[in-house]
Each structure stands twice: as structure tokens, then as C-alpha cells.
């Protein structure tokens, strides 16, 4: 199965019943699968006029009780930034899939890249935290989409599945769970009569449109009951600090990495998404030559696994960071370590090869 198709199926297993989107290569196959299957499962597929409206439709559907998702690529992701901010401010759980392609702008429309890593983190304005997961196999496209839905409900927050065109358009084996009971679903917490929809708890329960309570949902600064207050400094301060803290204080619960051979590692390759595949091949090849090279794959990109990166600083001489961009995560790693960080970057729509990652490692460790 294709990575894109696996993400669409993962959404269905997670209980997604609303998709609003606008087709774009290399993400269109996600919409194609959901357009075919959602109506048969009493769900809704809506093709909107653009990506701004697409995410808007998702947010509206979620407030009326749906589990909603949209999927796009770089140019559409740029357009969605406004509503991503709105989703953060209104604490609307939803999943946004970005199948990254070569940019800026139209770039190489059909070719893969990993250039939206920082846009996922800071694309929308204002202080905020972000949750973004990066799959590096077709199986993970399925599994992590389910995780994205659960994280979105758990934290009442938009969650980004940060795919790339290489993984989205990759075909390999996928194993479905035995039955729906095998998929743990985080249910939506709904507010009781005395509970506030935008305060009280750090992750407050939601109120839904059309039920027994009125709710005011605003992207403007608001009080715990949802009513606007855009002039009181403390109201804004408390709201935005809570929105940041609900993620930041639970980093350990959210961040996930896959590590191999770190115990004896003198150098380590830190990787994610499509670049993780040749990275593993390169680390295996280096170890076959007797070199003590470790492997750390970031499954969670945001919040950044800073504890795991800081831990490397004590131990390794060099951190290698292969990415299909000009060093976006490489620079993020530099914020947390004092050892040398060597970016292995490649752009132009072609994946890194095992050899391209292995060469700089051999050059340093086996001169």
C-alpha cells in the first residue's frame, strides 16, 4: 500500500468521520481514499475551494462533534497557517497531514522534500506549542495517524502528521490491526454543566454545538468561559501560557524516538522521515566496519525531543543529521548540544542514499 493510502486508512481506524480538503500532489491519494470510503461509513468528505476553507470546514465539523482531518502539501500548508493558529487558540482537536514537497512556492511540484519542518513549528504567528509526528515507513503512516488523532483529543490541539513525498508515494507492506478493538481511541472529554470550556483544567473539556449549552468560540483572547476579553493583560497572559504549558509540561508523554546502538556510540546519526531509511542503512554499514555509530530517529519532531538530544552531548564526538532540506533540524539540535553537528543535506527532489550518509562518517572516523 502507498504511504498516503495508509494514512487515510489510519484516519478511518482512528474514527475520523470528516475530511475537508483540496487535492495537491503528493497528498491527493489521501483525499482519494477518503472520498471513496468516508461516505460508505456515514462520514463526510468535502472538497473545498482552497486549503484555507478546507481547514476551516474541519474546525467547524469538529465543534459539532466530528473527528476531522485535512491533508495537503507545502503550498496548501502555507495557506492553512492562519487556521492552524485559530485551532490552537480555540483548542480544536484536529489532524493536519502535510506531505512535504520541494519548495519554496510551487518548487518541484511532484518531488519530495523535508522543507516544512520549521513551518510546522512556527508557521502560524504568536506564541504556541506544536505537536508534529514524522513517519518513516508505510506502516508508520498508518500507526502515527492514529496517534495524531489521539494526541489531538488528549490535548485539544491541532496535530500535524509531517510526512514527506518520498514516504507518501512509497509502497510497501502494511499490517492492519486484528480488529477495531485493538486500536485504542482517546475519546473527547466533554464539559459537565459546571465546567469551563476554556479554563479551569490545563486541558479543559469541550462543549459541542447543538447540545445543551451555549458556547462562544473565538480566536480572539478569551476568558475561561469563552467570552472575548482583548484588553486585559492578565487574561491573555494566562490563556497563552496555559496553551503552551499544556504541551510543554507533558513533553515526556508526547515525545518518542527510536534509538539503536547508542550505548557505545562515539558518533550518532539523528534522522527522521524518509531520511531515516538510508540513515539506518548507513549506520548498519558503519557498524559492520567496526565503527561505533549510533542511530536516533525522531518520531516526534515537535515538541522537540530535547532531553534525548542533550543526553548525546555527554557521550558523542559528532552528531550527523541527514535531511532533505538545508539543515532545519540540524540547527535545532545545535541549540541543545556543544559537540559538532554535521548537516548532511540534500535538496532537489531525490532521496539521500546510504553512501551519501556513510561517506562523511567514514571520512571522519576512518580517515
Amino acid at each position, binding site marked *: 500500500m502507498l504511504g498516503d493510502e495508509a494514512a487515510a486508512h489510519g484516519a478511518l481506524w482512528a474514527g475520523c468521520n470528516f475530511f475537508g480538503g483540496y487535492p495537491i500532489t503528493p497528498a491527493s491519494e489521501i483525499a482519494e481514499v477518503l472520498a471513496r470510503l468516508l461516505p460508505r461509513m456515514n462520514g463526510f468528505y468535502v472538497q473545498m475551494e482552497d486549503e484555507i476553507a478546507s481547514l476551516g470546514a474541519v474546525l467547524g465539523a469538529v465543534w459539532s462533534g466530528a473527528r476531522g482531518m485535512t491533508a495537503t502539501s507545502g503550498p496548501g500548508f502555507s495557506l492553512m497557517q492562519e487556521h492552524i493558529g485559530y485551532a490552537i487558540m480555540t483548542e480544536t482537536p484536529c489532524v493536519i497531514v502535510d506531505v512535504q514537497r520541494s519548495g519554496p512556492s510551487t518548487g518541484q511540484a511532484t518531488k519530495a522534500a523535508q522543507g516544512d519542518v520549521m513551518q510546522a513549528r512556527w508557521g502560524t504567528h504568536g506564541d504556541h506549542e506544536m505537536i508534529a509526528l514524522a513517519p518513516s515507513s508505510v506502516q508508520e503512516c498508518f500507526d502515527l495517524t492514529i496517534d495524531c488523532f489521539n494526541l489531538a483529543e488528549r490535548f485539544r490541539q491541532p496535530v500535524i502528521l509531517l510526512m514527506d513525498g518520498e514516504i507518501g508515494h512509497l509502497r510497501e507492506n502494511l499490517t492492519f490491526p486484528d480488529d477495531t478493538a485493538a486500536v485504542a481511541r482517546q475519546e473527547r472529554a466533554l464539559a459537565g454543566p459546571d465546567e469551563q470550556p476554556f479554563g479551569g483544567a490545563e486541558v479543559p473539556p469541550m462543549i459541542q454545538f447543538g447540545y445543551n449549552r451555549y458556547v462562544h468560540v473565538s480566536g480572539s483572547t478569551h476568558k475561561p468561559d469563552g467570552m472575548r476579553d482583548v484588553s486585559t493583560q492578565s487574561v491573555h497572559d494566562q490563556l497563552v501560557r496555559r496553551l503552551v504549558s499544556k504541551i510543554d509540561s507533558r513533553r515526556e508523554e508526547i515525545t518518542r524516538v527510536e534509538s539503536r546502538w547508542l550505548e557505545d556510540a562515539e558518533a550518532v546519526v539523528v534522522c527522521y522521515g524518509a531520511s531515516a531509511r538510508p540513515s539506518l542503512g548507513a549506520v548498519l554499514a558503519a557498524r559492520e566496519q567496526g565503527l561505533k555509530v549510533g542511530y536516533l530517529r525522531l518520531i516526534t519532531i515537535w515538541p522537540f525531543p530535547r532531553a534525548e538530544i542533550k543526553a548525546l552531548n555527554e557521550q558523542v564526538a559528532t552528531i550527523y543529521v541527514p535531511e532533505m532540506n538545508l539543515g532545519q533540524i540540524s540547527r535545532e539540535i545545535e541549540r541543545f548540544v556543544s559537540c559538532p553537528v554535521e548537516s548532511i543535506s540534500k535538496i532537489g527532489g531525490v532521496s539521500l*542514499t546510504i553512501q551519501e550518509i556513510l561517506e562523511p562518517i567514514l571520512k571522519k572516523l576512518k580517515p
Partner: protein
Amino acid sequence: MNIRFCGFGGQGIILSGYILGNAAIGEKLQALQTQSYGSESRGGACKSDVIISEQAIHEIEIEQLDVLVAFSQPAYDKYIGDLRPQGILIIEDDLVVPDPDSPFTPYRIKATDIAYKQFGRKIMANSVLLGFVTAIVKPVSRAAMETAVAATAPQGTAEANLGAFAAGFQAGCESA
């Protein structure tokens, strides 16, 4: 083993890789297929890589090809340099003129011509070529390939595609 199908968009390049990958999975092997195409719906440069292995597959981009199947001259020119020494080269004989100085002796098949003359449809050239590749390269069994071809063929065309596959397979047995 890895194989690259390459040519123009619209020739069934990606579908060929998809069918081969599915056949490998049918034989309980690990298979990975990637694709690269232009923004044109037809006529752009197109390739589809398949890696088949008994072990987990790490690489995505192939550095040295075991088999190159070229459906067009530009694709041949672009990728012949990626074929490893002693690698297998297969060309669509009516669309590719190989470099006379190249060390590779190609296996040649007029797949488009066979598909049109014997089956009335040029679009089945990729089924002919898949039969040819199966006979020469033997990436998976003939039966697994036929199952995958039949499963992928548009409704009502399975028999014709299997006929095209058989014609290609026979041609392959004669060339091998």
C-alpha cells in the same frame, strides 16, 4: 534485487513497478516501490523502482541498479549510468537506440508493437514487457506475476493482459 522501470508518463511505468512489488509480496518477500514522475499527466520523465528482499529494506534511493528496463530514449540516457557492471539491461526496441559503446548487451523487445498487433492495444505494452522481464530476470515466479497482473488489470481486461504477459514471457524465454 532491485529493478528500475523508466520511460514516459502514460506508458505504465509506475503500474509495472506496482505489479512487480505486489507479486513479490504474494511470494512472502519484502518489497518496496518508489515512483518519480513529472507534473505532466503524460509524456514527462517517469521512473519506478522496486526493491525485493528477504530482509527489511532500508534504502529508498537505489545507488546501483541490478536491472534497468528502459521504455524511452531519454530514460535510457538518464539512467544507464546507474546500472551496475554485469547488470541486466532490457529495452523497448522500437523506442530505444542503445549507445554502441556501452558495455551492456541489451535484451530487446518490441513490446508496444506486439501489444498493438497481437492484442489491438498499445496500452498493454507494459504487460508484454513484464512477461519479458519475468522470463529473463526471474525476480519472482511466473504464477505470482500472473496473479498480480490479473489483480491489477482494469475490469474485463485481465484475460487480454495475461495474454500479453504470456507473449512477452515467451519472447523472453527465446532471448534468454
